[in-house]
């Protein structure tokens, strides 16, 4: 579902990514961990089609991003640091706009049903600027899954969420993977990420230093890998 080969991104003379290879299959939740400046956000931006790699290739749902960008983006949902919502539009207007941009002609009841799924029914006609961070993130999830994507890319989705909203997000992610979707989850929160991921990829200074099944990692081995920049042998 997600395949990246030899991804390199150079800003001026600085390497943000150096030959990153990754693969995530249907039903997997791939947790991407790394310290600040590891290249996680750059990786997400390239996978989401917001930035072009200096070299390397990305394939989403079998569509190469370089040559079949529209098809690749049509099968992908992204929730990032920013919600990508318009503060002065209401919740339902935001969803209607993004539905149109994805070529969907969803009627009002269908949009309301999407809002129900993320617990925002009853707030549909309020401007997004009146929403709390957690509510905005829920709406961002509804936006990202409007077109029933097969790949979900989440970049620090827990930022600003309270415990209840985090649990809600965890359940949504697990359900998505259980139904055959592929999730790429980037987070600073190692404990939380390890709890939900089925596979782990460690990124340090733009390089993949380790990857494997989530149960082969602990928070301690991940933090040690951050510090040393090398794979930590399992006990």
């Amino acid at each position: 579902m997600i395949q990246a080969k030899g991804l390199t991104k150079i800003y001026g003379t600085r390497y943000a990514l150096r030959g990153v290879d990754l693969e995530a299959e249907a039903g997997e939740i791939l947790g991407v961990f790394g310290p600040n400046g590891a290249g996680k956000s750059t990786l997400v931006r390239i996978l989401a089609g917001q930035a072009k790699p200096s070299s390397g290739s990305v394939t989403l749902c079998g569509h190469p991003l370089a040559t079949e960008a529209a098809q690749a983006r049509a099968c992908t949902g992204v929730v990032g640091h920013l919600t990508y919502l318009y503060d002065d539009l209401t919740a339902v207007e935001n969803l209607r706009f993004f539905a149109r941009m994805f070529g969907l002609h969803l009627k009002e009841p269908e949009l309301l049903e999407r809002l129900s799924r993320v617990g925002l029914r009853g707030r549909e006609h309020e401007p997004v600027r009146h929403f709390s961070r957690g509510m905005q993130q829920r709406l961002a999830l509804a936006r990202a899954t409007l077109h029933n994507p097969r790949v979900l890319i989440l970049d620090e989705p827990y930022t600003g969420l309270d415990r209840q909203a985090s649990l809600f997000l965890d359940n949504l992610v697990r359900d998505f993977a259980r139904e055959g979707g592929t999730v790429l989850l980037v987070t600073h929160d190692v404990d939380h990420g390890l709890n939900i991921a089925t596979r782990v990829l460690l990124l340090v200074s733009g390089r993949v230093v380790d990857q494997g099944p989530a149960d082969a990692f602990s928070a301690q081995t991940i933090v040690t890998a951050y510090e040393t920049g090398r794979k930590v042998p399992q006990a």
Partner: protein
Amino acid sequence: MSYFAGIAAVYWKDVLLEFRTRQSLSTMFTFCLTIVIIFNFVFEPGSPAVLEVSPGVLWAAFTFSGLLGISRSFSFEIDRGGLQGLLLCPVERSTIYFGKVLGNATFMLLIEAVTFPIFVVFYNLPPNMNLLGLVLVFVLGTLGFVAVGTLLSAISANTKAREVLLPVLLFPVAVPVLVATVKSTGPLLRGEDLAQVASWVKLLLAFDLLFLAASSLTFEFIVEE
């Protein structure tokens, strides 16, 4: 999805946002009206000199006020991450550009439609003007200005000095459009036939097409890293 549906969606969103906040329209109108009023005190209404300078005053008011709207069209997207959200959508990047161009042109034409009658009254212009010809020139002139302005707004919106950079980039590039519009507006205000300014109108049309085509082709490279 169809190419035009993408353009329509971006246009609908921009118009809805503007009519909800009225941030661009109110500023544009105030600025445009201020220029018209200031110059009104310089020239004797109804004098021959007024007809000579009217096209220049009119287009100075239109373009400087239009600049305010154009500069906001991408800055508000970038400040709130909206542009990154648009880039996630499975549409050609140029649909975003054309949607923005249509939105900016609509706002500028609205300001022109409201300000022009006020301008006619203030400057005591003769009633026998070629109104249909003027409408054509206003639409073509606005489209050309907005076509290049929207592209440059996308470039300057990512910089710290965007308010300064946009006019510095835009006005030199838009000179052909501005010259053609001012040159064709003068005779039409005096009631002359469109055929008298046909060469300027053709030039205007050519620059509109050129700017629209070149801008839509380069837009993708500007918005993607």
